[in-house]
């Protein structure tokens, strides 16, 4: 088994895992019952999903220059995605959005 085939398999698996996270984030955004869980699902897309996709691309990077760029993009997403989700959730809490109580009818 050659190295390039191994790299293809690894990067394919990473990209596929990233796709699973992105799709499940999208489904969660539509299906989850209240605001906070939906925010959680949405932020999953641009943290776990994007990180796995970029790792998959990183394996295939042709030169170290593009690898550095991918790592920088990943760090940027790691910083901004959770911050945005946090700010969103905190703004909702300030605005009086609350978690539904146990057994309460969820929208």
């Amino acid at each position, binding site marked *: 088994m050659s190295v390039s085939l191994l790299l293809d398999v690894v990067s394919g698996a990473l990209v596929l895992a990233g796709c699973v996270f992105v799709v499940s984030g999208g489904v969660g955004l539509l299906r989850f019952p209240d605001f906070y869980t939906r925010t959680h699902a949405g932020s999953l897309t641009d943290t776990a999903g994007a990180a796995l996709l970029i790792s998959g691309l990183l394996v295939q990077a042709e030169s170290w220059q593009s690898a550095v760029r991918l790592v920088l993009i990943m760090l*940027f997403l790691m*910083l*901004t995605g959770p911050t945005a989700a946090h700010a969103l959730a*905190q703004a909702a809490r300030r605005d009086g959005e609350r978690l539904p109580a146990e057994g309460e009818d969820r929208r």
Partner: protein
Amino acid sequence: MDLLVLMNVSLFALLLATALAVTRLRALYEATMLTALAGLLSASLFVSLDALDVAITEAAVGTGITTVLFLGALALTRSRETVTPRRKLWSGGAVAVLLGATLLYAAQDLPTFADPDTPVQTHPVGHTYLHGSQEDIGIPNTVAAVLASYRGYDTLGELVVIFTAGITVPLLLMRTRRRGEHDEARAVVMSEYRVLRVASKILMPFIFIFACYVLFHGDYGPGGGFQGGVIFASGFVLYGLVFGIRNVERVLPWPVMLGLVPVGVLLYAGLGIANILLGGSFLDYGTLTPDHPAEGQHLGILIIETGVGITVAAVLIAVFYSFTARGARR
């Protein structure tokens, strides 16, 4: 090729769906967010068409700054669209249908996608720009060579348009400028968002470094003065949103920034006049270094890109200032 077609079709379908959703929404904050999404989708379409310079502009302006300015405008008015009575809708609808029909009719004359026999592809000027620019100017990014050197007049005209907008919007919005207690209340609110403050503080230097990279690397890769200026302004806008406009004003006072608005235009036009004085024609950068015209072209493009960057950044920050300062009065 098939993959490209699939990508283009799905991106266009998403764009169409977003546009339809924007027209259906009455809540204007949501509509603004969807407009940002439309900007991002157009940027992706430009990337798939290999128009990277345009894509960066669209991503920075269409998704970034425009959204903030829309939100600033919404903060001044109501955030919900008034319901137009049904009997008043038909005139607007008729205009929309007529315009759409005209556009569809006109689109019949458009060449098919990527047709090699169109005037755009066959006209000799395209060949001249693509091949001649490497000898005349010698910078790898032909787009920058065309915009800044071959069509330098047009870019100067565009910059003057931006300059006019940049002095008009503050004049319209900043008639009276008072600092109310609203600003302090807002600062208290934002101080609760500690994570946001820390994260934006960490990001700030990188945004400015990236803006300078996009500006000064524009000769070699996608980017240039316009994109760099927009990214630079977005750094200030982010700081202003998180830390309050008062803190931005401590870094860049209002008179200084208004003073910077014409500096870029003057730099650009002044370079053209310097070229005349050196014995060439207007914006003929080769006269800067008579022994080596290509080097003068590099220098000239760098100077005018800097001018474009200064004016664009100052104009966008000024427009953002005037919206937020106006909001603080209420």
